[in-house]
């Protein structure tokens, strides 16, 4: 058996199995660059002074993998950069060569949890419930109430609001015990209950006065009276004052705990098939080789060369000792592998650093810096005194 090795030239045949995946076989630039790269790489490895124990398919394979790796790195960066805008978008629309405009959709979605907890919106439903008030019963077990409603099997409930409150202070605005003021006198006058001025005498008070009066009423109720209040620990509701009569209802609002968790998983009822759910299904595909610019292609050549170097090292390293007549030699497989690997890692680091420098945040920061520096620079220009 005689396996041919690199003869010094090659002729790429698209869609003939020269590349393992054939991602870019139909791309004219890839077709022409494949052979050029093979020559470039073989010469970098020492051909024709040294034999290269590789075939053209090794060069093509490395070349294809380098293009794919380059695309993966760039698009992985794009996904990281835009995941907040992409998540939930239509996964069937390929955005490989699209410009992504950031959207607030997912920011709003992420904020819904705050609304749900604060009771000002959100995606968790608040339900109404009520218990019968019992004469002289101060503590009401709302867990027992939930169990009776069958809600304990749904993770139980969390009480969000209890309607055990004193009447609004405004209803006591005219309570003679709550306070005094010109407003009352004016009102009394207007109804003819007082003799100090005619009914037409009405003293208009500022709104702040009314508010202070309401606050005074509330403070009065808290300090001088047994105000309505409650304590809620582990859904054991302890009310103050103790009800002194039956027949009333105490209403409250609650959420079902499982629904809070479910709202995280499925985005409520908005879950739609074929939406981007993670970086896994972000709609990016392999790059179009023709669109890759010169710096990108240069990176690809270097990365593919590192791959080729590693492959050659693997081949030369299969047997640590190669028999030659009456002796054995050790080839440079180890060196090739370590050099190839080191080159690849360095190239990946360099590319990631470069991409990071072109992130939206970095670009905006740089732009802001430039603006600041430009402003400082302009401040150095002497001011001209205008002479009219």
């Amino acid at each position, binding site marked *: *058996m005689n*396996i041919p090795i690199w003869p010094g030239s090659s002729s790429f045949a698209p869609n003939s199995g020269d590349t393992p995946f054939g991602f870019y076989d139909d791309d004219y630039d890839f077709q022409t660059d494949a052979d050029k790269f093979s020559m470039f790489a073989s010469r970098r490895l020492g051909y024709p002074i040294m034999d290269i124990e590789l075939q053209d398919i090794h060069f093509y394979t490395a070349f294809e993998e380098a293009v794919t790796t380059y695309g993966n790195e760039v698009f992985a960066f794009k996904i990281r950069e835009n995941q907040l805008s992409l998540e939930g978008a239509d996964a069937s629309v390929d955005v490989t060569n699209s410009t992504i405009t950031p959207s607030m959709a997912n920011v709003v979605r992420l904020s819904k949890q705050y609304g749900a907890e604060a009771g000002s919106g959100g995606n968790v439903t608040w339900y109404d419930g009520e218990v019968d008030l019992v004469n002289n019963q101060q503590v009401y077990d709302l867990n027992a109430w939930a169990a009776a409603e069958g809600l304990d099997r749904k993770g139980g409930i969390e009480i969000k609001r209890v309607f055990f409150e004193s009447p609004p202070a405004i209803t006591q605005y005219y309570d003679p015990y709550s306070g005094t003021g010109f407003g009352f006198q004016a009102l009394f006058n207007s109804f003819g209950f007082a003799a100090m001025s005619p009914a037409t005498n009405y003293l208009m008070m500022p709104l702040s006065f009314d508010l202070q009066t309401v606050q005074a009423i509330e403070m009065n109720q808290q300090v001088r009276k047994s105000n309505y209040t409650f304590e809620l620990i582990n859904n054991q509701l302890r009310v103050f004052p103790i009800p002194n009569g039956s027949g009333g209802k105490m209403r409250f609002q609650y959420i079902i705990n499982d629904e809070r968790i479910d709202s995280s998983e499925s985005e409520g009822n908005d879950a739609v098939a074929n939406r981007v759910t993670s970086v896994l299904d972000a709609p990016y595909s392999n790059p179009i080789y023709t669109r890759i610019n010169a710096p990108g292609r240069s990176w690809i050549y270097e990365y593919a060369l590192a791959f080729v170097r590693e492959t050659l090292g693997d081949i030369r390293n299969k047997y640590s000792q190669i*028999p030659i*007549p009456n002796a054995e030699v050790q080839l440079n497989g180890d060196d090739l592998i370590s050099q190839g690997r080191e080159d690849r890692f360095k190239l990946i680091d360099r590319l990631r650093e470069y991409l990071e420098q072109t992130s939206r945040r970095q670009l905006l920061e740089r732009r802001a810096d430039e603006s600041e520096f430009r402003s400082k620079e302009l401040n150095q220009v002497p001011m001209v005194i205008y002479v009219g």
Partner: protein
Amino acid sequence: MALFTSGRDFSMMRHINRELLNDIISQQASFYKYKIGDTKTNIYGEAAGEKYFDGPYIFSCLVSRSDQEFPESDLGVNFNQAIDFSFFRDDLVDTMYVPEVGDIVLYQESYYEIDDLVANQYFGGKNPDYPNNGSAGQQNPLNPGLSKFGANVSIIAKTHYVPADKLNLSPYKERL
């Protein structure tokens, strides 16, 4: 079935060997093979008169030289040097040259007669010429297909110096 030291693996080593011997080390030696039919012999079976040779056949090889010796005898000072020539066996196979004891090797204007031939260097310890198949063509029951594994790597010719006048080789007609 064997997995390592296949013909595919040895193909790569063949490239390495040829690159090493031809392009990097570049040591060479030439064989002369006796033409027994053309050489007249005396009653003792020794060559009588001229000797005839085929060759020279030039090959790349590894040359392992021992030091020159100048032993003294009643006839004066003599000269001797033993050299081992290691050939890549596939080179010889490709040219269908079979070295034998008694063949002459030309190396650096001097002649060396082969005393001994060693063909004992096997890749992976396996000689594919002996796959241990049955005489009726049955495959080796333990390891079928052994003929595709291993290789006979080298032929080492152990030689000693021979004066040119004893060979009667014409330096102008029969040498390189």
